[in-house]
């Protein structure tokens, strides 16, 4: 039975999805529940399972393409089944936002006994019909539930007050009959008095036992990609100590001058980005990718920078970083980091990096080893800058500032000597930071 796979509704607010990556190609066999593509929603990148069994006959949507809900993505045929005559062109897109797309023509002709909704669009998500409240009032709020899905007993007035004040009812100890939350319990909160009366906020629900946290789309992607990286890429690790004194001195001067001209304030990471780009140009062998039967060496440096956000980790990419000044890099990074935190990065902005920087210096981490961000061949792990006793040129122990930079390399692409060469270039730039701003 020929079945069209459509863009599913993967989040409540999703109106379109971007096909980030096909995990299957035309001609591949798929089984039920197998993940066939990564889809970027307004919230996260998620993998999309199929509910079909068969062979992907035709893929209609290219990677990176954004399509509305219900748009036909691919055609799956049963093994040995003849493709329909019009298989080369997708049927008209179902852009119905309810996602309850009608079965395509090929489907509706199938005989009785056919398993009902054959399209994945209907199955993985809940019907988009608005949740009606039992009272049916024009403004009624739905009854809140606890984390366990238990209904919270609260008066309508208390519910409205809580909603208005942004108070989580599951954290209120109700003093009404049977523990019902009443308005007084919220007035108490607002008043902030009543110590010793035993009413008020319950402690935040701290996990006192084991719990199962469902995977977010982003967590799923992180898990999949890093497992793949760590298990298929032969990592090796290098570390180098940088004298950060000149960098800190120059940064202070640059910032002073920049701020005086109402320019940006540069972070240490801005300098590291520029140094990485220059070092990668000097040792292009690290700016490469293992391609199975070849190594692909990139002509440009597209710099991935890891950004921690509430939900996990994203690595926005500064494209053609070799052509950008430190000022350009700093500005672009600031913008990308902001977008990352607001979850507004487009797939384009997260793809195509050639080398990655991960900086945990702000957390006081001395040095660490990072996992390579495939298909890249190297990732830098930047530690914190700390004051150290150092031995100077006159064999005197003096206070200095030091920083460790680690590098994880894909040994299939980068050998130890190449990695070392890159790191010593990086060190040279960072210890002569004037080269970074010229």
């Amino acid at each position, binding site marked *: 039975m020929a079945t069209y796979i459509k863009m599913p509704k993967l989040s409540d607010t999703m109106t379109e999805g971007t096909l980030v990556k096909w995990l299957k190609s035309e001609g591949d066999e798929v089984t039920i529940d197998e993940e066939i593509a990564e889809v970027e929603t307004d919230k996260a990148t998620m993998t999309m399972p199929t509910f079909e069994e068969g062979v992907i006959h035709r893929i209609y949507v290219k990677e990176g393409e954004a399509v509305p809900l219900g748009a036909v993505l691919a055609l799956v045929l049963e093994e040995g089944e003849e493709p329909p005559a019009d298989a080369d062109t997708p049927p008209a897109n179902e852009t119905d936002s309810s996602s309850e797309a009608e079965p395509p023509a090929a489907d509706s002709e199938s005989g009785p006994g056919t398993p009902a909704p054959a399209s994945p669009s209907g199955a993985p998500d809940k019907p988009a019909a608005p949740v009606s409240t039992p*009272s*049916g*009032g*024009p*403004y*009624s709020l739905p009854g809140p539930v606890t984390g366990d899905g238990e209904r919270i007993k609260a*008066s*309508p*007035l*208390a519910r*409205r*007050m809580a909603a*208005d004040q942004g108070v989580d009812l599951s954290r209120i100890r109700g003093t009404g009959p049977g523990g019902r939350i*009443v*308005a007084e319990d919220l007035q108490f909160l607002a008043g902030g008095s009543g110590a010793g009366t035993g009413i008020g906020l319950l402690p935040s629900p701290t996990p006192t036992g084991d719990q199962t946290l469902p995977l977010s789309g982003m967590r799923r992607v992180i898990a999949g990609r890093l497992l793949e990286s760590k298990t298929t890429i032969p990592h090796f690790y290098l570390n180098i100590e940088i004298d950060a004194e000149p960098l800190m001195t120059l940064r202070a001067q640059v910032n002073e001058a920049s701020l005086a001209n109402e320019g940006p304030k540069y972070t240490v990471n801005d300098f590291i980005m520029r140094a990485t780009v220059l070092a990668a140009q000097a040792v292009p062998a690290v700016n490469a990718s293992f391609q199975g039967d070849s190594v692909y060496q990139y002509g440009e440096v597209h710099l991935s920078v890891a950004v921690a956000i509430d939900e996990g980790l994203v690595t926005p990419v500064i494209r053609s970083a070799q052509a950008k000044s430190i000022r350009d890099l700093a500005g672009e990074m600031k913008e990308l980091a902001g977008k990352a935190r607001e979850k507004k990065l487009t797939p384009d902005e997260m793809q195509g990096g050639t080398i990655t920087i991960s900086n945990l210096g702000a957390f006081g981490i001395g040095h660490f080893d990072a996992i390579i961000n495939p298909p890249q061949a190297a990732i830098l792990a930047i530690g914190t800058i700390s004051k150290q006793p150092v031995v100077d040129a006159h064999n005197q122990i003096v206070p200095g500032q030091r920083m460790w930079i680690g590098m994880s390399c894909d040994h299939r692409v980068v050998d130890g000597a190449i990695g070392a060469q890159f790191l010593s270039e990086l060190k040279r730039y960072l210890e002569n930071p004037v080269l970074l701003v010229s």
Partner: protein
Amino acid sequence: MATYDLIVIGGGPAGYVAAIRAAQLGKKVACIEKERAGGTCLNWGCIPTKALLKNAELYHTLVHHADDFGLSFDKLSFDWDKVVRRSRNVSDKLAGGIEFLFKKNKVDYIRGTGGLAANGKVEVIREEGADPELLTTENVLIATGCVSRGLPFLPFDGEKVIGSREAMVLPKQPKSITIIGAGAIGIEFAYFFNAYGTEVHVVEMQDTVLPIEDNEVSAALEKSLTKQGVKIHTSTKTTHAEVGKKGVTLTIEPAAGGESSTIESEICLVAVGVAPVLPNNAEQIKLDDRGYIVTDERYQSSVPNVYAAGDITGPPWLAHTGSYEAIQAVEGMFDSSYTPKKVGLFPACTYCHPEVASIGLTEEACKEKDLAYRVGKFPFAASGRALAVADSEGFVKILIDEQYGEILGAHIIGAGSTELIAEIALAMNLEATHEEIEATIHAHPTLAEAIHEATSDAFGHAIHI
């Protein structure tokens, strides 16, 4: 000698309810009543007056509106004796009902005058002049209630200067009556006597009838009663009274001062309030400056294990609040883990015609508290049911908090309002907002629809106005 867990002194709506509740909890209970079970409410208050008012309303309707219903008759008359007797019969029947409930719940019902005695004892004097008999008990609940309060210059004489108790059993219909006090009791009797053709004057110090009600309701009621023939003198004080053979002559003058005038009437009913009635030997119990028993949050008086509930603890002097307090007091008494509740929200009703019922804040109180509120109103003149039953006087007024939609108060004047108020009482007690009332389907055609419409009106959603 038997040892009781609880002896209740007083068998009114607080006392008998307390006794039965304690008995339900498995306690050994006695209830001492000096007159008849049921107290003022059942014998001399709420119940018999409602019977009289029903008679009055029926008579008034036949006299003034028979033609509206297509009725005609040659000579309509009434038998005053029978009017009063029906009212007494209702009381008798209900008082018997309380005695039955005592038996059913194994409460020892003791006729006599109760009093406190030393060392956990209660005395009861079964007949006047008899020696006090001592009963032993763990706890005492005083629910002795109140009686009508007289005026210093106009003491009750039981014939020409009377309280509500005498007013409901007058041997014959008075030609004229002056009622001092336009609270619920004064207004109900004003309606009652006026309906039968007695000339009625009502003198009230404050500037409205039913002064505790919402001003709009009071004004509407004053207008209605005036139209019915009651002569109402608000903002008026009584300065002097003379009781003569033919009746009572009252000197009245504007409360703010001014020229005085006189009202002559056969009878003067003093309905200015009530005064507490203490049990015997209550000297040790701390009273407030008006003589009501002071209780703590568990309804306990200044004497350990002696509790009090109902009218004897002060306003609002209502049967339904007294019963509520009694249950709370008893539950707290026998369950130390239970925190008794105090009367908060309660409906108040006046059973004249049109009836008045209210709960919560008046609009004046909302203003005084500087609340942001909305007013919703719906006249019964726009109610299909009210028109169908030819009783479309009055309106529903509801006050709703602007921010959260909380129902702040409701004020209803009109036939059936004393029944309608229960919906609002429940809604307010459950902290429903206007949304829940709006979302509730009200049967059609009913007077209750007016509540729905008034609520909707506060937000401009009313359909029928």
